[in-house]
């Protein structure tokens, strides 16, 4: 293991802020932010709850180039209100997606880091999620790839998980999680026997990046560095599936087959075993290289059905 590095592309994705991720992901110096912090478009609602606001409402949106090609980028800040969708936060993403419809960039990148809907602005957040999904479907139909990158501490939960499921392609790191209901929510509603949220190994086995990659819920597995996510994004842009009946029919078949094949599994390790992974118990501790080799042999992990 090498001593600390200050190379921005070696920056840990999990540790970096939204702003650091965007700056290091894009071609150096190419990022231009829309409605930057100096515009002070803060939440009109949080003060009612005696909660502090953020100048960017927890999302950074703008344009940049990636390998010289123009892209639009949105990055959620998972540490502000859990990266949750509030009114302004959601509207900034919607504005970006709508602009993409006219501008036809090489791709739209969404750097998810969200617990879902911001409770204090729940109706606005929920509606924004629906708007985002509609806008993404339109963009994809217009031929613009929408790529989701998931590796932040808040993961992609709630409506964030649904938006992620709408994207053309997803890259995820080991720390990244994708789900609808969070572990605590399931435990609160259904009890600790259903889901022990303190068993973090269980959480990651069920919702984490490696499981999602193995079952085809994500299309690329990235090391926890900005450089790895950049490489994954470039790769995924080049192989974004169309948004048409054939793709969705294929996805229907893919998901139905998944339930038929694994519907009786209680734990992810059982699924991995049926996928042909030799030593399922070893998966969580696998290095990226070993995991990549494992994934390469799993048929379900490779598809255009999204």
């Amino acid at each position, binding site marked *: 293991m090498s001593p600390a590095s200050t190379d921005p592309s070696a920056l840990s994705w999990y540790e970096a802020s939204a702003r650091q991720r965007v700056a290091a992901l894009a071609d150096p110096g190419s990022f231009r932010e829309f409605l930057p912090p100096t515009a002070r478009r803060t939440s009109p609602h949080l003060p009612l709850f005696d909660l502090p606001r953020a100048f960017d409402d927890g999302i950074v949106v703008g344009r940049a180039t990636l390998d010289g090609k123009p892209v639009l980028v949105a990055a959620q800040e998972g540490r502000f209100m859990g990266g949750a969708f509030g009114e*302004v936060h959601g509207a900034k993403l919607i504005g970006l997606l709508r*602009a993409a419809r006219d501008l036809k960039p090489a791709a739209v990148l969404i750097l998810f880091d969200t617990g879902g809907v911001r*409770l204090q602005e729940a109706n606005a957040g929920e509606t924004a999620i629906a708007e985002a999904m509609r806008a993404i479907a339109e963009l994809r139909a217009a031929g613009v790839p929408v790529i989701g990158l998931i590796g932040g501490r808040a993961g992609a939960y709630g409506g964030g998980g649904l938006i992620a499921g709408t994207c053309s392609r997803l890259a995820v790191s080991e720390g990244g999680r994708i789900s609808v209901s969070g572990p605590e929510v399931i435990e609160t509603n259904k009890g600790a026997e259903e889901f022990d949220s303190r068993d973090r190994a269980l959480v990651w086995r069920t919702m984490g990046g490696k499981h999602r990659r193995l079952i085809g819920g994500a299309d690329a597995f990235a090391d926890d560095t900005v450089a790895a996510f950049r490489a994954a994004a470039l790769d995924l842009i080049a192989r974004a599936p169309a948004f048409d009946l054939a793709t969705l029919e294929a996805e229907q078949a893919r998901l139905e087959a998944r339930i038929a094949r694994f519907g009786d599994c209680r734990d992810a390790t059982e699924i991995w075993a049926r996928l042909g992974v030799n030593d399922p118990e070893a998966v969580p501790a696998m290095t990226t290289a070993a995991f990549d080799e494992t994934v390469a042999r799993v048929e379900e992990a490779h598809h255009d059905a999204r």
Partner: protein
Amino acid sequence: MTLAEILASLFPQGHRVRVADGLVGGHGPLDGVEATVIGIDGDTALGIEGALALSRAVLDAVRAGDRAPILVLVDSDSQRMSRRDELLGLNECLAHLAKALLLADQAGHPTIGLIYGHSAAGAFIATALATRVLAALPGANPSVMDLPSVARVTKLPLDKLQEMAKSTPVFAPGLDNMVATGAVHAVLDPARPLSEQVRALIADAPADDVRDRLGAERGGRPVARAVAEAVADEARLEARRG
């Protein structure tokens, strides 16, 4: 209104819509074409199997290529909260259902949502909120989270939240607040035949996503539209600069 009453009012000539395990599916004649009906009844939670059953019906309609309306009738719980659903990719299944509806819309099928009971969270987003026009019947109760739960999470007293809810539709549960947000386009009149009201919704369906405009007009989302426009304007300006 009950589902049976709604179906009777939508399809006065009769219909072939069935409910099984809380999932609604079938067809009924609307303006001379066979509309597809999907939905969730009886405050049922939407899990992976349910989502894929509904999406299958939608894709079947798209494959038929007749551009007939698709009606989405909703009285659901939230998404099904379980370890198994998440293990098997509930987010993909719910997103897939929403994508099927959005694809149908792109393919020329009018997609009309009708919420007549409860709905919440992922189930709401994947069904009713994925239609082009979402209508509601009085008494419907869409919510993200009920107020006692909001009180628990925000650590604010319930009575204070109730007071705040009166002036701030953005966080409070209930139909009026969802209408104010722009998520629900219209509230129907149960005293008049739903068939003609739905026909009118189809005829007047907006070409674009107008929910943030409605939210601004109705005051439920005071800034979303302006913020989205400002971002889009800056993006276009930057693009022109190159």
